[in-house]
């Protein structure tokens, strides 16, 4: 082997390595795009803007959303009724004002068209009795009650002239874990090919409660559990 041949071989392998690296990098980037699911809070098919006024079609008055936070937990993906993927991170805090929280890293495998997703809206009772936790579960996130132990599963705050309250404000803090007032709901959604974006249709809640009567739920009670039933209709695969 001559010196030139050695040099050429070296160049060849270098080029191959770079190519391989690029391919890997491309793959990784591509994977990232597939790995996450996203939540899109909407009112009548419009992405919700915090502080913006919307018209409630059922109750015929305006509404403004100031805060929307909720926990999505224990996410599973299915392929033909078989559970094929369990998301490693157990609890995600979704906050409408923190756009990065709307994208959930699920480490999904590329090229599989999952046809069902299942997740909890809220925090299970075991986690609720396990003491102080960090990350998305840290009590500094404002999703943990202080006067009584328990996570708030879903928090929606805003105002509407319909609410006979100070500053016309409504507060829905739906949470707790102890029977008979456990408002945890498990959601199952069919997925069609390749679309991992999920709408959170807040009108499914606001149209179903009478804001002139129901505008303040801040404890685990029968009203909270009844309201949590509406969460089953809240989620829909984006069109």
């Amino acid at each position, binding site marked *: 082997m001559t010196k030139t041949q050695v040099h050429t071989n070296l160049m060849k392998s270098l080029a191959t390595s770079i190519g391989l690296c690029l391919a890997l990098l491309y793959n990784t980037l591509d994977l990232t795009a597939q790995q996450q699911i996203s939540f899109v809070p909407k009112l009548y098919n419009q992405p919700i803007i915090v502080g913006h006024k919307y018209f409630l079609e059922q109750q015929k008055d305006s509404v403004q959303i100031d805060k929307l936070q909720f926990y999505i937990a224990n996410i599973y993906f299915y392929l033909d009724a078989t559970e094929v993927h369990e998301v490693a991170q157990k609890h995600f805090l979704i906050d409408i004002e923190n756009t990065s929280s709307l994208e959930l890293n699920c480490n999904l495998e590329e090229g599989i068209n999952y046809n069902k997703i299942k997740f909890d809206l809220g925090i299970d009772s075991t986690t*609720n*009795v*396990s*003491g*102080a*936790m*960090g990350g998305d*579960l*840290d*009590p*500094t*996130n*404002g999703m*943990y009650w*202080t*006067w*009584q*132990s*328990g996570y708030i599963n879903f928090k929606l705050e805003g105002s509407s002239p319909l609410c006979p309250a100070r500053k016309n404000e409504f507060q829905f803090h739906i949470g707790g874990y*102890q029977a008979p007032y456990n408002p945890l709901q498990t959601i199952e959604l069919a997925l069609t090919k390749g679309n991992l974006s999920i709408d959170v249709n807040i009108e499914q809640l606001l149209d179903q409660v009478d804001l002139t009567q129901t505008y303040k739920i801040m404890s685990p*009670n029968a009203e909270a559990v009844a309201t949590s039933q509406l969460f089953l209709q809240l989620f829909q695969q984006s069109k």
Partner: protein
Amino acid sequence: MSLKYSILVLISLGCMGFYTIELKLFDYPEYFPVPEYNFDENPLEEAKVELGRALFYDPILSKDNTISCASCHSPYNAFAHTDHDLSHGINDEIGTRNAPALFNLAWQKSFMWDGAINHLDVQALAPISHPAEMGESIANVVNKLQNSALYRKMFFEAYGDSLATGEYTLKALSQFQLTLVSSNSKYDKVKVGKDSFTVQEQAGYTLFIKNCNSCHTEPLFSNYSFANNGLSIDTTLNDYGKWGISKQSKDSLLFKIPSLRNLSYTYPYMHDGRFKKLNEVLKHYTTGISHSKTIAKELKRPIILSSNDKVDLIAFLLTLNDKDFVFDPKNKFPRDILMSSEGFKK
């Protein structure tokens, strides 16, 4: 004496030192039950206990930096608040319940007089957030701690990260409080054969077992469950105890059964601090029971004690005072930390 021998001595001394530290952080006598607290989730370490002690004594936890945990849970009162029937918070706000003594917390399943809190780690959130106690939010406490040179140092030493989080703040507070073990009263010394009861104390012990032990169960002197002990409703407070949390009628007027350890240091007694003297408490149990639907089954029939019995019983109850615990320097205000140039940063 050879070098080998010296090294051996040094190693043994080192091991003993290590062993002593282990004992100091959390230890309890053989006759105590197994703790409820899951130490695997929050293993005690000296730097974390120290951080917890500093936090416990630092008014930085309150909104206006005036009230610390120790304001209502003083070490000299076995971490209760002598002379105050109801707890006392920021801006001279008065709460609705008596600040309970803090010790042997590792054996308790739930916290607060109404059991509202299900885990020691999250207990501190209640007084921190209560408008009549510290009136602060945990998020702002964490913010203040992150801006304090002292706590950046202490969190780094304890958790390897100078930035406080809610989780670490609460877990450090638990660490210190878990070390508050009271197990060195005369009763305990008798239990291990290092002392003996007087005739009167022994008579009181017999009366205690017959009349009190089913709720104030030895050796912790509480079974830490909830009961209606027949107190009449104070109409200025209208406190229905556990019912306020569960909204179930079976829980009406149920309050947490407190331990009887250290009772000379922890007056006044009951959830609203209505009794100042032990005599008043015994009078309540013998002739003062207010009967209602949820009254404890043990109190349905009257407890009969002669005046001699009462004297004997009190003599026994006084053997539950644990002076070593109340004056233990490791539990006191950490002067060297909080009075340093970095301490009490406003």
